[in-house]
């Protein structure tokens, strides 16, 4: 299964609704399983950099097939992966929480990135939306 524009719209609309409910203004990006953008919305009054940050979070979650916040563990000097962030691969890698893979069963079909609130709020939006997603 690949992520379609219809699914991406459904995901982003749900995220916008959720963000409005908690009074946040944010950007939401959905990428496919390879990290390529499918859709991206910036809510009115969301800060400018949130667009790129949301996109980068989604890219990171898709590329590493894990939550973007998990990348920060590779920055731990006591672990062998230390220094990953310093390679700044593709300029997109981010360790900020708020990027989550979208799964169909075990397979990762894409990822969502949210930016605009605190990392906890961004993650909460991602989780709510991914959990509510109905795959045909």
């Amino acid at each position, binding site marked *: 299964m690949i992520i379609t524009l219809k699914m991406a719209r459904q995901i982003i609309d749900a995220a916008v609704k959720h963000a409005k409910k908690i009074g946040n203004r944010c950007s939401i990006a959905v990428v496919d399983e390879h990290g*390529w953008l*499918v859709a*991206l919305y910036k809510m009115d009054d969301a800060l400018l950099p949130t667009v790129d940050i949301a996109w980068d979070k989604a890219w990171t979650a898709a590329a590493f097939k894990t939550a973007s916040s998990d990348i920060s563990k590779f920055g731990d000097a006591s672990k062998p992966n230390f220094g990953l962030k310093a390679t700044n691969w593709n300029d997109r890698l981010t360790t900020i929480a708020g990027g989550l893979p979208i799964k169909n069963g075990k397979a990762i079909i894409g990822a969502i990135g949210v930016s605009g609130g605190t990392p906890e709020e961004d993650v909460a939006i991602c989780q709510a939306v991914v959990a509510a997603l109905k795959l045909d």
Partner: protein
Amino acid sequence: MKEMTLEMAKKALKASVRWARDIAENPCSVAVVDKAGAVIAVERMDGAAQATTDIAIEKAWSVVAFKVPTLMLARMIDPRALGKQLGDHGIGLLTKGKGRLTFIAGSVPITGDDGEIIGAIGCSGVPAGVGEISDSSVCQAGWSALYD
């Protein structure tokens, strides 16, 4: 219209995507930016090439940055225009715009009530830049929806 909102951007994207799907029958990406050139919404249709999202965004950004459709920028660097005033003037632009300025047709400005540019639509993925079935006409479909 005074300012671009997400609602307006979604309306334009919906119309553009529908036009690209039903009439152009060609998957593509469409981007809407505000008067600062900042992205409001981007959509890539199923089957459109991956790089088209970036190109659609850069086209829309170029419209706001230069206040002309990118078709005009394409004309300014057309080698056939060299030796004429417009061509000589335009070719130097290639190195300007921090790598974002895009010289490919396929974008339209959105003007507000007072005639100022309040945003732009950019499209990429249709083989032609201008013409009946082109990136430009996909943008125009979205543009029309805003002025209904």
